[in-house]
């Protein structure tokens, strides 16, 4: 599982830092421009325009100056933050007034907004219950002010239900949001627990059993350990294991596993490419099996190397050991394996088998099918 989606408030802003380079006054505009990735001229013009709204731009600038951290600083001191916030709120009020929006809308909005922020999980150090109560109080006061203002004057009473609905929305949305987040976290935790249980069961069934078996039958330790290794790999790296049943790589891998089981030698399979298994490839795999079995049985080694190369030109399978070796010309007639199971099989499907062996140095069987 990827880390259970850490959830960020929709209100969370990108981190803004005052800039030290390129700045005109305090680097506020440059900092904002960088954080939201717009041209700095645009930000500067915005502040300049806002300055016409009863000086809101200037107040906002000073507020931001106070509020934003200098480069490298994590956060300005508390007093500066408070001053900054107050200035920015003041600027907002110035700006809204400039737009013709009066207190009758402004204060209720601010109060309800603050309530919503509290409810969305940012409790500013308050405990949960108090935060909820506080939020509720804020929203109620906001709605009451709004309704009071607008019913007293020219506005119609129809506004009141609308205001209540908006306030409710503002309260309910963050609450629902938080609930979803909690449920997601719960689900992630449950999945983790299930995965753990699955893992434990897996380890118990396989690894622990094998370890017990090894203690009981130390003579088979190698074989048991190897089988366990295969199983564990298949489980840990499923994507890499033989892609699909019915491909030549899959067949070679399982043949190798079979030989390991039968003779206790380690069969290392290296492969490039893959192809669906057909009759000819089946014959190649069976011939390869015979070669692997011969190596494991007669070579007196504990490792056999197998290389399967599936390319455009055809398929080649190499089985190599560094064991006793033999003289291919002097193979006794009773060693039917080489002649029939390997050569005969390959020739019947139009392939070739080459056997190279030097007594004392090892053997390599090369099986080839042309495309």
């Amino acid at each position, binding site marked *: 599982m990827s880390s259970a989606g850490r959830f960020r408030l929709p209100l969370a802003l990108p981190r803004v830092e005052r800039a030290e380079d390129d700045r005109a006054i305090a680097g506020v505009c440059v900092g904002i421009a960088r954080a939201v990735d717009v041209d700095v001229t645009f930000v500067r013009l915005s502040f300049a325009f806002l300055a016409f709204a009863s000086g809101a731009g200037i107040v906002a600038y000073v507020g931001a100056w106070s509020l934003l951290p200098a480069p490298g600083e994590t956060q300005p001191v508390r007093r500066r933050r408070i001053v900054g916030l107050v200035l920015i709120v003041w600027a907002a009020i110035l700006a809204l007034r400039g737009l013709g929006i009066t207190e009758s809308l402004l204060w209720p909005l601010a109060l309800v907004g603050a309530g919503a922020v509290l409810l969305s999980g940012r409790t500013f150090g308050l405990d949960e219950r108090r935060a909820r109560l506080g939020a509720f109080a804020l929203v109620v006061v906001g709605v009451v002010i709004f309704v009071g203002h607008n019913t007293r004057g020219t506005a119609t009473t129809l506004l009141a239900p609308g205001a209540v609905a908006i306030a409710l929305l503002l309260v309910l949305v963050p609450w629902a949001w938080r609930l979803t987040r909690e449920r997601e976290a719960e689900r992630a935790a449950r999945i983790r627990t299930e995965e753990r249980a699955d893992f434990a069961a897996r380890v118990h069934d396989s690894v622990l059993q094998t370890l017990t078996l090894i203690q009981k039958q130390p003579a088979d330790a190698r074989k048991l350990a190897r089988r366990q290794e295969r199983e564990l*790999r298949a489980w840990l790296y499923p*994507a*890499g294991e033989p892609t699909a049943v019915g491909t030549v790589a899959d067949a070679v891998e399982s043949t190798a596993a079979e030989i390991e089981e039968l003779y206790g030698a380690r069969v290392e399979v290296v*492969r490039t490419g893959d192809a669906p298994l057909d009759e000819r490839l089946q014959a190649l795999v069976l011939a390869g099996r015979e070669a692997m079995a011969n190596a494991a049985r007669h070579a007196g080694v504990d490792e056999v190397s197998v290389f399967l190369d599936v390319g455009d030109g055809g398929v080649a399978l190499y089985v190599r050991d560094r064991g006793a070796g033999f003289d291919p010309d002097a193979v006794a007639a009773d060693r039917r394996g080489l002649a029939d199971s390997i050569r005969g099989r390959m020739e019947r499907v139009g392939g070739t088998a080459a056997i190279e062996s030097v007594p004392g140095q090892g053997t390599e069987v090369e099986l080839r099918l042309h495309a």
Partner: protein
Amino acid sequence: MSRSGGTGLAGAGAGPVSVMLRRVVLVDDHDLFRAGVRAGLGRTVDVVGEAGTVADAVPLIKELDPDVVLLDVHLPDGGGQAVIVQVAPERPGVKFLALSVSDAAEDVIGVIRAGARGYVTKAISGEELTDAVHRTADGDAVFSPRLAGFVLDAFRSGDPVADPDLDQLTAREREVLQLIARGYRYKEIAARLHLSSRTVESHVSAVLRKLQLSNRNELTRWAAERRLI
């Protein structure tokens, strides 16, 4: 296939060649495995230090300045790649050989691209590992059969997504890699292809360089998709 007596290989049949003593640092988080490696390494390899974490390994390697670091791909605090990245700029003479039980191609490609001179699986015999340490110390590349198969696959010719910038393998390099994949050792490859061991080594080093330098995302993507070398 004839086997003439020894160049620097510690393989069976190598005569009493005078071999330098190599100073090695072992980095692996399993004590048991470290003990096993130490016991398996020949007398020509001197384990001068051991570490189990990235945090311990980095200062230790910088202090000891060994010839070779045997490096586990998986470490609890960052992996072998992190060790290479932190040590290599300051100690360019130190060579890294990655050891792993992992079959995940992305791990292998990661550690090779970080600068490891080779990659061998932990199932390797002590004798072969000793040989690999010497080759690494000599500046050669060490490819296990699996790594060779993996590289052949990654550089597969006629790949429809083949990157034109990618250095393709030469026919000779491909041939050498195929023999490694088949389980041949360098000396055996040299004999088979009628080359000197040096030439075989330089082919493998060239492949390693292509692997490290080719700036292809595709290689990484391929590795991630494939997961198994």
